[in-house]
């Protein structure tokens, strides 16, 4: 097998395993977590195998045509960046499966949807990071959003989960559309959608495209002002939070920033836009984390802050070069996923997530406490953890930037220091609040399974090992950054850089952070609630409500629920525009071949007479049911025309559609009160509005009639049908031309049509089956991920 096939297998294997998981889940008493881990492990193994075949410094591109007419090929780019993310996705995925297998309560029948979503997510993530074609990348990018929606909404009866899932989907999908526009502009401008070609120097970047793509990045990576969906997404089960919303999916923005950095690095806006938003988000996130009480909300805000930091670092990289960029990401993956799992264990064993109600758990579960300590230490950036080295090298970059851009650099540096200080205090609170202090009397506790504690411990151990011996990572990271586009040399990682400014600043941050923690602890975290004006999620919901409200008002203003009010307008427009054009070209029309006599036939005449008679019935009958039946009588007479012209397929279809639609319309109309009960009466009369309606009806009739006549007049001398009929025997092996066209020649169209039919039917059913849902239920939901903070709510 070629490299392409191996890689495709690695990407698709998780999704291919979905049916197996769903089927296996139908049986009780089967551990789906382990079953799910198998394809992920296989993917991981395949990726490692593939990367061993790669040779620095060249990235490998493998390609297979997919939709050649649109220039879309199934092309994959294997370089250091994609490999790094591929390993992270599969590696953390394995640990998350392990964790979820023990974490999720409930039967496998209930949980199989969860694992299926997880596997689908892995495929879409791998597809995103390995795609070479930007459009394919975008498709996978959006699929991750869909997977995230499904997983956040896993407990779909919980209003919080509904709200969180909806918000995340709306935000990431709508910002994704901006990304799509950016991609199309970039691709059209440069003449290629292939990343490898763009990176090789064919790109024509500009600030506008960058801004559009940046919006997509900010939405996915929960950057200000789109940050609010991430805390809402915390309504998901904890394994999902640990995996999607801290370790992988939200890192996609960082990934794309890294991807397009060589293209846009020299663009004017790069540093200002990405750096500005990144560092602003860093401060906002840290501030919000500082003011949260709910453990998951706190971690979510800290994640937002950290993502801002990562994107900010890439923003600077154009000026000062990239130092250990993979290391930052890896460090965050390790400690944040570990902390989320710790929170999950705490919630699992106590049922609580509010810091104010927790405490003293350290002695009860020492291993988790240790993992929590290491994670929090890396978060705060204590020495001997990955966080410390990450912070040191970031400070080095920032100090470099100050030399190049004094104002911007100083602002970014100040923002970093401020955010780091806040994060230190929050990390200290996180650890002490859960594990130290006195255990509240009313706290119920049951021991978590021992093996549930292992995955976070493993991740936390990673922060310690790679923080103490960063040299271990030197070779793999060098290999990764040497492969493909990321050829900026990263200096060897080391724990000790000597006495320098970075160390001083680090110490300062830790000291001030500790001081902040102590004062806040002393004050009892009284101010720990999020001020209303920073509740972007609520503003967003209000905006959405306002939109529907406005739409309803507009609909009422336009009276669109009352056809007689707007139909005359539409018809007048149709007649005026189309009829006008028709009349203006009337002189050029050749009347050759048109004669009243040539088509005359007594049977046809009789049919036409019956049809017209039925139409008179439609007009003059008084009850709508009778009118409707008269209308269908006209339809049945039309069927006879088809039969006379040797089109039995059409005739049969027409008869069936006619009868089905009569039944359906009768049923539909039965839902409405009769017009007399609504106080409406339709009378024949010669008032002006009746006259107008009559005029319009006659006009439409004449227009359609003449359209038919003219269409028939200009018949092509060589109709396509004859060729189709000839081919249908030869190529499609069938005698019925209509059918061969439907299922063979135009099979693709039919496929599209039946899919659309199915979707339309689902939409119609959604409108008709109005069970349970009232008008404004969704707004009564609690805000996402938060226990309503503040003194007044404290228990």
């Amino acid at each position, binding site marked *: 097998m070629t490299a392409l096939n191996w890689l495709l297998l690695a990407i698709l294997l998780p999704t291919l395993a979905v049916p197996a998981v769903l089927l296996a889940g139908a049986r009780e008493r089967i551990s789906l977590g382990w079953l799910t881990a198998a394809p992920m492990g296989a993917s991981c193994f395949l990726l490692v195998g593939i990367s061993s075949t790669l040779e620095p410094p060249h990235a490998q591109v493998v390609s297979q045509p997919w939709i050649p007419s649109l220039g879309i090929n199934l092309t994959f780019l294997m370089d250091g960046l994609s490999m790094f993310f591929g390993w992270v996705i599969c590696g953390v995925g394995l640990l998350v499966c392990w964790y979820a297998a023990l974490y999720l309560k409930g039967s496998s029948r209930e949980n199989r949807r969860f694992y299926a979503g997880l596997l689908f997510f892995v495929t879409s993530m791998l597809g995103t990071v390995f795609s070479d074609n930007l459009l394919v990348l975008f498709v996978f990018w959006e699929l991750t959003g869909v997977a995230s929606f499904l997983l956040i909404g896993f407990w779909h009866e919980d209003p919080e989960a509904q709200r969180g899932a909806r918000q995340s989907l709306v935000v990431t999908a709508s910002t994704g559309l901006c990304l799509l526009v950016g991609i199309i502009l970039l691709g059209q401008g440069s003449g290629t959608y292939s990343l490898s070609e763009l990176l090789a120097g064919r790109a024509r970047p500009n600030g506008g495209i960058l801004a559009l793509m940046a919006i997509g990045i900010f939405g996915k990576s929960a950057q200000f002002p789109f940050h609010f969906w991430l805390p809402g997404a915390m309504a998901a089960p904890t394994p999902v939070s640990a995996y999607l919303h801290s370790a992988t999916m939200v890192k996609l923005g960082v990934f794309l920033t890294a991807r397009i950095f060589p293209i846009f690095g020299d663009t004017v806006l790069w540093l200002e836009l990405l750096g500005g938003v990144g560092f602003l988000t860093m401060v906002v996130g840290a501030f919000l984390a500082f003011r949260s009480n709910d453990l998951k909300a706190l971690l979510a805000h800290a994640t937002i802050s950290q993502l801002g930091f990562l994107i900010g670092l890439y923003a600077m990289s154009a000026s000062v070069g990239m130092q250990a960029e993979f290391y930052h990401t890896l460090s965050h993956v390790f400690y944040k996923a570990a902390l989320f799992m710790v929170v999950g264990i705490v919630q699992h064993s106590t049922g609580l997530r509010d810091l104010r109600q927790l405490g003293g758990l350290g002695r009860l579960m020492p291993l988790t406490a240790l993992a929590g300590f290491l994670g929090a230490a890396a978060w705060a950036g204590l020495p001997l953890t990955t966080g410390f080295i990450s912070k040191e090298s970031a400070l080095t970059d920032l100090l470099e930037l100050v030399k190049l851009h004094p104002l911007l650099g100083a602002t970014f540096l100040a923002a970093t220091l401020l955010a780091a200080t806040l994060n230190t205090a929050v990390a200290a609170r996180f650890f002490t609040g859960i594990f130290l202090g006195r255990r509240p009397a009313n706290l119920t506790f049951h021991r978590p399974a021992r093996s549930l504690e292992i995955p976070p411990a493993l991740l936390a151990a990673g922060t310690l090992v790679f923080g103490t011996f960063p040299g271990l990572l030197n070779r793999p990271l060098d290999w990764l950054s040497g492969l493909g586009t990321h050829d900026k040399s990263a200096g060897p990682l080391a724990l000790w850089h000597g006495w320098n400014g970075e160390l001083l600043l680090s110490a300062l941050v830790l000291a001030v952070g500790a001081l902040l923690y102590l004062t806040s602890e002393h004050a009892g975290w009284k101010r720990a609630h999020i001020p209303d004006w920073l509740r972007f999620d609520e503003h967003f919901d209000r905006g959405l409500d306002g939109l529907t409200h406005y739409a309803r008002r507009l609909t009422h203003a336009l009276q669109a629920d009352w056809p007689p009010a707007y139909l005359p307008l539409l018809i007048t427009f149709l007649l005026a525009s189309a009829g006008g054009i028709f009349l203006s070209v009337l002189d050029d029309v050749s009347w050759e071949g048109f004669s009243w006599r040539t088509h005359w036939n007594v049977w046809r005449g009789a049919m036409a007479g019956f049809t017209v008679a039925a139409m008179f019935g439609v007009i003059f009958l008084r009850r709508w049911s009778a009118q409707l039946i008269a209308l269908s009588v006209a339809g049945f007479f039309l069927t006879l025309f088809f039969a006379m012209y040797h089109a039995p*397929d059409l005739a049969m*279809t027409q008869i069936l559609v006619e009868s*089905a639609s009569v039944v359906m319309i009768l*049923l*539909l109309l039965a839902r409405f009160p009769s017009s007399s009960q609504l106080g409406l009466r339709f009378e024949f009369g010669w008032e002006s509005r009746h006259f107008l309606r009559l005029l319009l009806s006659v006009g439409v009739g004449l227009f359609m009639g003449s359209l038919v006549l003219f269409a028939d007049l200009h018949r092509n001398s060589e109709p396509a049908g004859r060729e189709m009929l000839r081919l249908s025997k030869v190529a499609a092996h069938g*005698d019925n031309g*209509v059918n061969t066209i439907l299922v*063979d020649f135009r099979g693709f169209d039919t*496929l599209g049509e039946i899919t659309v039919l*199915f979707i339309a039917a689902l939409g119609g059913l959604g409108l008709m089956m109005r069970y349970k849902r009232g008008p404004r239920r969704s707004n009564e939901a609690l805000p996402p991920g938060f226990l309503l903070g503040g003194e007044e709510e404290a228990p």
Partner: protein
Amino acid sequence: MKSVNSFMLRALIGLVFLLVNIISIYMLLRGHNLPGGGFIGGLMTGMSFILLGLVRGWSELQRELPLPPLRMAAFGVLLAILSGLAPLLWGQAFLTQFNFHWTGLPLLGELHVGTPLLFDCGVFFLVGGITVKLVIVLARSTSGLPAFTPGETPYYASTLEGGIEETANEEGDAHAN
């Protein structure tokens, strides 16, 4: 909505249902060479279920359906897509058709079948399923729906008017008198 109260219909509906379905499947199978096909067959089957519902009552029909109609429709779409995807396994283009010709089969004698038949079956299931589902939902909704807003109540939550047949019967009686 009430069902039609006629002894003749009740007695004959089973037979009619069977006959219509035999014809519809015949239409489906012969579609490639003679008038017919998945759409026509599916619609006929759908109509047979509508008849059944009209005579026996909709809630009873829904209870007695062997398969959820929406699943049948989804299965149809899936079948059509799969019949298109299958050629990819042999390196052919999407929706390439294969034909099989057998002679000397027991009972059937000579048989010529192509993969388009699978595609047509997909259309059959989709059209049949959707027709049945939509009509059942429409029919059951005539007994009144919760409205989204109070303003919609007179339009959707109609409990004022009875079923079509009811009013039709009343009117018929009025004329008879």
